[in-house]
């Protein structure tokens, strides 16, 4: 187990290293630089040169890369070109909002997706299962900006029961009223972001459960006198959850990097909107920091997913032995 963990962590670190290196070169392969976006008739060539030097862009690419790696090993992600604050600080300002959105999505996905998936599997081929299947198909194929604007139009504009954007109504309140205000702002982006993930959770749980319900040990459980509820909860669900956990685990990793579209439409101040702003401003350090965060999240979630799957199914031996 410990050898497996060490091996996985080392492989994860290698993945992160390759990812941040690729990010470093890809953002610089873009055919322009931040300074050229700021050029205006009023700026002298000397001022432009000063700006290039201030951003460290006058150095050869490999020198920039070397400096970047040294800083990275020191835990320094550099300074934002546009905001002029340390990238780590910038990311840490935004990360809690993304984690909050992510947490709400996970609660929604697990709280609704698994019971609905089990329900559909138990009623396979019947009316309830068909409705669920249609909803799953819609959920998987829906275009997120479409559902986002639909939600905004209905609940923010037509019924006026939800706010249009932001994380809370300024100025920032205190106590319970603040918590409730944030919760209210959280609803629409959570629903918009959860739709696809929820559909996936339902689909994988349903299909997993259908497979498991045909296993011999389930028949054995019934023959021992267990009722349907006991069989599903104590014998079937754990095994049926393996594909669901795998898929959700990977999705969570990606979502930490930011739900760019959702956060942009709902003006949610998370990492996704930070990436959107950073792309527009060609803010290399912020982009590098955000993609590092994404790489770490994916690697960590992969590891956690493997551990959870191994816990769910003891037949799976970590390390393949």
């Amino acid at each position, binding site marked *: 187990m410990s050898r497996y963990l060490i091996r996985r962590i080392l492989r994860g670190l290698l993945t992160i290293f390759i990812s941040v290196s690729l990010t470093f070169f890809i953002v610089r392969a873009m055919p322009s630089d931040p300074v050229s976006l700021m050029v205006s008739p009023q700026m002298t060539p000397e001022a432009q040169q000063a700006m290039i030097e201030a951003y460290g862009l006058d150095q050869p690419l490999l020198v920039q890369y070397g400096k970047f790696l040294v800083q990275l090993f020191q835990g320094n992600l550099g300074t934002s070109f*546009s905001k*002029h604050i340390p990238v780590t600080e910038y990311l840490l300002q935004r990360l809690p909002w993304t984690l909050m959105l992510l947490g709400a999505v996970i609660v929604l996905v697990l709280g609704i997706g698994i019971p609905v998936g089990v329900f559909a599997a138990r009623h396979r081929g019947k009316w309830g299962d068909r409705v669920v299947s249609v909803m799953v198909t819609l959920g998987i194929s829906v275009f997120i900006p479409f559902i986002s604007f639909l939600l905004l*139009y209905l609940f923010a504009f037509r019924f006026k029961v939800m706010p249009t954007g*932001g994380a809370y109504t300024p100025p920032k309140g205190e106590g319970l009223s603040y918590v409730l205000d944030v919760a209210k702002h959280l609803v629409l982006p959570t629903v918009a972001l959860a739709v696809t993930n929820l559909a996936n959770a339902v689909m994988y749980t349903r299909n997993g459960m259908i497979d498991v319900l045909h296993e011999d040990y389930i028949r054995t459980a019934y023959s021992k006198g267990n009722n349907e509820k006991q069989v599903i909860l104590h014998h079937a669900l754990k095994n049926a959850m393996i594909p669901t956990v795998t898929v959700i685990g990977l999705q969570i990793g990606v979502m930490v990097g930011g739900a760019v579209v959702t956060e942009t*439409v709902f003006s949610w*101040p998370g990492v996704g909107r930070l990436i959107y702003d950073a792309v527009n401003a060609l803010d290399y350090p912020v982009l590098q920091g955000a993609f590092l965060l994404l790489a770490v999240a994916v690697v960590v979630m992969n590891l956690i997913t493997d551990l959870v799957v191994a816990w769910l199914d003891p037949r799976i031996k970590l390390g393949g032995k």
Partner: protein
Amino acid sequence: MKYKRVLSALLAVAMGVSMAACGGSSESGSTSASSAVSTSQEASAPGVGGTLTVGLNANPVSSNIWVQNDLNSSVIMNLVCPNLVTMDETGNKYGYLAEATSNEDCTQWTITLKDLYWNDGTPVTAEDVAFSTTYGVEHQIGFFDSYYGHVASTEVVDDKTVIFNLESADVNFFNGGFYWIPIMRKSEFESVTDPLNYIYSGAGYGPYYVDEWVDGQYVSLKRNPYFTQANDGQGAYLDNILFRVYTDENAMVLALENGEIDVCANYISANSQTQLAANEKYLLTTVDGLGYGQLSYSQTNALLQDVNMRQAISMCIDREALVAVGMNGEATAMYTPISPVYQDFVASNIQQPAFDTAAAKSLLESNGYADTDGDGILESADGTKASFTVSYKTSIQNVDNVMEILRTGAAQAGIELKLEPLDASTYSAKVTNGQTFDISYSIWGTIDDVDTTLYTCYGIGQTLNFMQYNNEEMDNLLIAMKSEPDRAKRIEMLDQWQQLWVDNMPSAMTYVPKQTYVANTEKFAGFSAVLGNCGYLNCAQAIGIYAK
């Protein structure tokens, strides 16, 4: 089958609702295009009080406006640290918070501040003004060197008066830097060694100061009680202005409609205007932008070195179609070489070649061009086809329609325009930096002080002369204008330059994009907008907004 029908109906309803939400309303309605305050704004006598909530379409980056020039930060900070110079509705600049005089040859400028106070009650002094210019140049901040790099010395005469001695004549010294760069507070910045990474306190000498700046969410401004340059000494009417960020325009318009915000800081699209125009509580004001569309002919292309070819292409520009069809009426046709926004400079009405594709073709044919292979494209005497690539940014409003109109017009004259849409970065690399293009199409952001700024665009070897145009006669006129103190004489010289420009057509102008701003007048009145990028929130106008 029954399920499918129900599902189809639900989908149709959902799509319809969503289209409406996305601004694609089919409701017809004309957009108000007036700079006057509408009747819906009329209300009881204005008084102090109220919080105006404003929507921004992007995250304002920083209150350190001296090093950061994003539009939304500028909109906010123009209320906190306004520029001493502003612009009126005819495109003329005037001293808003200071007055200036110069000596005869414009090498010495005396600037006198009006009564201005920081929000803690301490006065803004001539020391602050002098400090700002020297500090910015010393620390190589943004545009400081362009505007103040030629300042030889400054003399603080008294608390409100400062004299700038220049190394060379500059007729637009006051109108230039003081229109773009606000005053820095000496007591705050004199100890700052790294202004690039400095977080500004938010102190203001304008009608407001920064109370709270929460990145990515909102900015709260409070009324500066010591600001007296408005409303007969009362200062601004509004107690607070709250800026909220909506990164999607459709979401911002919905926020306006459901009352979350009272006004949009940024101009809105034609679709959004249509959506709002039918409701009279929304005041829509349209102003011309300070930039314009321009086709630039690269002198690295042999055919484009031929003035006849440049003239011919310029005769293929159907400006009426560009405005009416290409821009859905959201632009003003530009027939003069200089934007019609600057009324004094286009009074001579020197015009670009008129739209006439037949005449364009005749011009080329009479100068040796012919379609020898019958493909509809003319060839020069050496067999080179009159075929050019037009590079342009995809981010330009309605650019596909505009390009198609240009391409069609040129085709009628036997000139092939191959369209090359590029993202902003690639465009910069290819056109402004790389200068490896045939023809480029761009929308200038702001070209002000045209009598001196044009040199940057057309002067030999100048930064923005990326078409590499080289005409000494025109160059000499531009250089002479920079040191001619008499404005009437400068206008005369500019007329000469415009005539030379029309004769040579180094580039061609298309239209001035319009900018339409919107405000909800249910709770607030006093909205008006002038030229510039701040819409209703330009400081000199925003101080007139009050709660009903």
